[in-house]
């Protein structure tokens, strides 16, 4: 085992992060050097945290260099822990107290219109993610983290789940592909995660293996709430197996499609129009509807092209998707606006729901609006539109009262 390790990030352009270089020595006590532009105001606090962590792991002789670019305490702690565990092989966890406001759960059918991807080893992008109010944040341990950084990223993601306020967003983690992703669970399941994204999912068995380990950890840590799953379909085989995966377990709440990998698997180019993935997308929507879960579309990768994104969301909505991934905070608003029901849709839905309410009140079996008969599925769709509109704050919860006053 190497006696000297380096973890974290430093250098030009690195913000809200730090790099820790740690070498265990035979004697001489703790030699600590902290280079930081915030030393003048957080020097004492940082030093105390570092010393606390060292003593937590009973490190008595070491030389440590911390090169800090304004890391928040949860990041500094993650970097220190990763360095010490890497060099000592310890499996003890150094945990800062979980934020009280982070202790909430999410429901199976909540809105998942926007989910913001956050690279798991880049804390600067996480810190302000919540202020843009995505429905969910995805702390990504998979493709956004380089292979040699995966170990240290686990600590950043774990601490972010516990200590970073995402202002009500659903906390999601994209684990690595099964089976490797199973090793990620120790860092996530006990720490207030709401939903796991399961990449490159191709069978119900993968979900079962995953749930087995989740259940073990839940039992071990006395967790009695559901942890939701969102498998990502990213291959031709996955598309074929979509319904099987959608119905593999009760905690599967959604399927997402990943078109970069899917088109690569088909050996075709991904286009803006998306004809090459039309089958896959409609298949996925169909499988989700059959299983009663949410179909979620792939990300739109040109972050500068907001009009292109808007068009893309409109297409996605018309195919039946309920949401889409985001790779930049500025995409969130556009996605929400474009998935939101339009004003005339809302007005029509209000009338239908009111007509249904009246018919029910009068004990009528048939709903009619003016001279037109309304079929039950139309009522159901209208209710869905109203629910979405209220959830998005487009109409007040008590819209019925306003409707009557008009």
């Amino acid at each position, binding site marked *: 085992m190497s006696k000297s390790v380096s973890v974290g990030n430093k250098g030009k352009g690195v*913000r*809200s992060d730090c790099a820790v270089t740690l070498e265990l020595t035979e004697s001489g006590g703790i030699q600590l050097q902290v280079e930081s*532009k*915030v030393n*003048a*105001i*957080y*020097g*004492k*606090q940082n030093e105390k945290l570092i010393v606390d962590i060292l003593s937590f792991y009973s490190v008595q002789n070491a030389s440590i260099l911390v090169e800090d*670019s*304004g*890391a*928040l*305490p949860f990041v500094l702690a993650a970097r220190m822990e990763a360095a010490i565990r890497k060099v000592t092989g310890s499996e003890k966890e150094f945990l800062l107290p979980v934020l009280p406001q982070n202790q909430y759960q999410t429901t199976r059918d909540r809105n998942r219109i926007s989910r913001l991807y956050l690279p798991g080893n880049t804390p600067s992008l996480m*810190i*302000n993610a919540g*202020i*843009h109010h995505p429905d969910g944040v995805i702390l990504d341990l998979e493709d956004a983290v380089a292979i040699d950084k995966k170990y240290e990223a686990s600590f950043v993601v774990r601490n972010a789940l516990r200590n970073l*306020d995402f202002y009500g967003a659903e906390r999601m983690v994209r684990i690595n592909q099964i089976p490797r992703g199973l090793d990620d669970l120790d860092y996530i399941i006990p720490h207030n995660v709401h939903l796991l994204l399961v990449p490159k999912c191709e069978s119900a068995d993968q979900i079962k293996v995953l749930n087995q380990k989740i259940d073990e950890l839940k039992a071990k840590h006395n967790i009695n709430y559901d942890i939701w799953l969102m498998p990502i379909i990213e291959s031709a085989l996955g598309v074929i197996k979509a319904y099987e995966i959608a119905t593999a377990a009760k905690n599967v709440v959604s399927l997402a499609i990943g078109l970069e990998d899917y088109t690569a698997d088909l050996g075709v180019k991904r286009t803006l129009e998306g004809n090459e993935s039309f089958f896959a997308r409609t298949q996925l929507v169909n499988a989700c509807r059959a299983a009663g879960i949410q179909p979620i579309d792939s990300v739109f990768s040109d972050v500068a092209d907001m009009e292109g994104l808007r068009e893309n969301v409109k297409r996605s909505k018309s195919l039946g998707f309920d949401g889409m991934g985001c790779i*930049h*905070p*500025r995409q969130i608003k556009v996605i929400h606006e474009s998935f939101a029901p339009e004003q005339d849709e809302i007005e029509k839905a209000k009338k239908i729901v009111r007509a249904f309410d009246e018919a029910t009140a009068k004990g009528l079996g048939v709903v009619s609006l003016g001279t037109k008969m309304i079929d039950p599925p139309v009522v159901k769709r209208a209710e869905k539109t109203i629910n979405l509109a209220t959830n998005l*704050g487009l109409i007040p919860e008590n819209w019925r009262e306003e409707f009557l006053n008009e």
Partner: protein
Amino acid sequence: MSKLVKNAVGRMVPTEINGQEAIPFKGVGKHRPTGRKYAPPIPTAIDYPEDGNKVVGSLKEALQKCGLKDGMTISTHHHLRDGDLVSNTIFDAAHEIGVKNLVWFPSASFPCNEPITKYLEDGTINRIEGSMNGPLGKFVSQGKMKGTAVLRSHGGRVQAIQDGEVKIDIAVLAAPSSDFFGNANALSGPSACGVLGYATTDYLYADKVIVITDNLVDFPNMPMEIEGNYVDYVVVVDKIGIPEKIVSGTTQITKSPDRLLIAELTAQFLQESGILKDGCYMQAGAGGTSLAIGYYVHQILKAKGWKSKLGFGGSTKYMVQMLEEGTMEHIMDAQAFDLEAVASIANNKNHHQYPVYNAYNFHSKGNLTSMMDIMILGATEVDVNFNGNVVTHSDGYLLHGIGGWQNCLHAKNVILPIPLFRDRIPVIKDEVTTICGPGEMIDIIVTERGIAINPRRTDLIEKMKGSKLPIKTIEELKAEAEAICGTAQKPNISDEIVAAIKWVDGTIIDVVRKVIE
């Protein structure tokens, strides 16, 4: 060291600086210098060449002819910004001549002026009285400058010249174009920077005036923003500036999602509060966030069919766009920040040059700034009493100038769109490191995590009741930042005063002390 007294914002300030009497800040609008304005000595036309040709061989020769002596005050303007090739060479020449203890009185300095530090070290320069940026600010904070720095706002600089607090011995004014008589402007030439508004007071009040240009044009050079009748000597050099550093070719709206969010919140606040209205007077700076606010405001004006009556520059292409698309009627401009703005000044009859002393100056008969409905400003720190700091960082280092910031505080609605913390450094504190502006003049703080309205603005608080915008108290915002970043310890700062911060009326609002490293 002179006696320290507590001023009206509770800061301990000296009653004497650099051997001159200093008046502690008395409160906004409480100090009123009297008497007659300072005037330069009477020149006579018979002492100047009858053919009008005032060109001399070199800057050194011109300085010698002006009678450069130990202890003199030399002024410069900062229109060449970080591309200024003139200021440093003044002190190269002064060093060659062998004079000591000069005072440099720039309207602002930039990182390109770092070489000046060697003349501060060897005694050629005693001190800088002016806004200090980057390396010079750091040098001062380390206590290395002999004299005490004096920082003034753009308007405060004019005030100090006009009421005789600062006497300029020699003004060395870089000019993108000049004729041999000294008629100068900034509209053409390789270093064209649009306007020379900051130089106006200098050429009117200095004992001696040197115009230095790399673009000698035929007489008469019109328009004459600097009038040759006030100029003693003209010096021609190869290059006065590095064009790409004078104006940025492109000013850019921020791409940061967090700052765009702050800009959006600000524009929404302006709209909901009714501050943004048809015919309003507004100012938006050239920073990325300010530009984004300007962009959103432009969209709101367009959607409503409204017009801003007047935009107050520093102008940028975004303001020019408003002028051209009809959402703004006039731009009044003390400086141009990009090439589009420079071109617009030359071509658009509603884009006016406007010297700072009319916009800002305490001794003017009225200021443009107090007429502004919307004033967007920045700050390094704000405290729970809404006091603002723009000159020092939380670690105590002096790293920015005041610019027009204090003067702009006189607007009807002062809005500071700022992030709640920058790389863990919190912006809202119990007490700002340095008070540059009293809290009674700052109305609204917009951060990505909430908007705080100054409790004195009960009208705005009332208006925003029921708004969906995240209106919070400033204490709540501060607590939120501390929960994320931690509570900052006090930086290690000594008692030694290294700089004085003047208020717009010439009184001392605060001091900066030496940082212990």
